[in-house]
């Protein structure tokens, strides 16, 4: 399906994607300790803004949800709320080993062990913690993916909502985000593409 979508891209889509990839805003949310490497990435030494990547404050404005490291269950709730508030296309980037397999908190009773069970992860940055260079290189590959139209993980959340919802419910029971994801998917025609 993904390939079909890729081949169906019109010239306009391609132009748009190449413009869009030049501006990526990252949600200003320090979910974990990896956030400490973000200020160096943003400021003079590594200067993320070169690539059009800026921190943005509220979920409505952000394109990238950077999960900076381990996610405690308490934070995961907020992250899901915030992810649902973000407007698509949106990309979840798992940052650090903890998002991949729990990292050094593999036996912790409060942190989740695999981020992609709860949110559709576009890409992972491995390491504990990844250096600013790694972050920038990771973002650059995200930029490439967006330019090629391959960064479509956000559609997965609409398409496989039951899977994510089931896992979320398993961890902390039901939460009220006031956001009807499947209805959203139908309204914006994201779910149609699947059929």
């Amino acid at each position, binding site marked *: 399906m993904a390939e079909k979508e890729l081949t169906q891209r019109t010239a306009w889509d391609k132009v748009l994607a190449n413009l869009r990839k030049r501006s990526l805003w990252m949600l200003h949310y320090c979910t974990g300790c990896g956030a400490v490497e973000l200020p160096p990435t943003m400021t003079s030494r590594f200067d993320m803004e070169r690539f059009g990547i800026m921190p943005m404050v509220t979920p409505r404005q952000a394109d990238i949800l950077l999960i900076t490291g381990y996610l405690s269950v308490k934070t995961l*709730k907020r992250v899901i709320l915030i992810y649902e508030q973000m407007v698509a296309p949106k990309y979840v980037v798992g940052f650090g080993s903890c998002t991949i*397999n729990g990292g050094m908190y593999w*036996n912790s*009773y409060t942190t989740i*062990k*695999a981020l992609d069970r709860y949110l559709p992860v576009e890409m992972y940055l491995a390491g504990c913690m990844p250096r600013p260079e790694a972050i920038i290189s990771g973002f650059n590959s995200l930029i490439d993916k967006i330019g090629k139209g391959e960064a479509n993980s956000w559609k997965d959340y609409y398409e496989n909502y039951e899977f994510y919802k089931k*896992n979320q419910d398993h*961890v902390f029971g039901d939460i009220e985000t006031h956001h009807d994801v499947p209805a959203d998917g139908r309204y914006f025609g994201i779910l149609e593409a699947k059929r």
Partner: protein
Amino acid sequence: MNAQTQAPTTSRPPAATGAPRMTEALVSAITAETGIATFRTKSPRRIEGTVQADALHSFAAALRSRVGFEHLSAISCVDWIAEGEFELVYHFWSYRDSHLVSARVRIPREPGSMATITDLWLPASFFERDIHEFYGVVFQGNTDLERYILSDWKGPPPMRKDFSSRDFAHEHFTFKDYEPTWDELIDGGYHGQKRQGEGSDE
């Protein structure tokens, strides 16, 4: 909350004024002023002793107002599960004398209950709430024992020795591809006796 109004402020020596006392002088001062004679020098600038649970409040008040230990550094809790007791260790610091007094209090594990000292030290409120959350000890008189760090937590108090973080994690979280069990190679496995509920995944 109202610590500032209730705290005895009269005989409190101004911080770090007056000549610092030597350790031996301090130990005898503690004995003299608080009437508890268990305190001994442990190491340089460290004094420790045991206090009965019901005597702690008056001991702490005397220590603060009459001996000059103005700073509550921390309250630690240790779960001696084998003895069925919680050990609360109150760490007081004297700015004047640069000494730390650790007062040990043993309380029964069930029901873990202790008198608060929040009326003497505001910071005690944090430590007591912390111990309440993580061990389930109830501090009588502390009005602010609401869930704080573990506000979304539904399990048992996690710092108790009979709670296994590893088991909990395996039951509640999905792992990716592999399940790390290499630690069982060390010292006969995970805490020796745990993991008997192996494979129960309901």
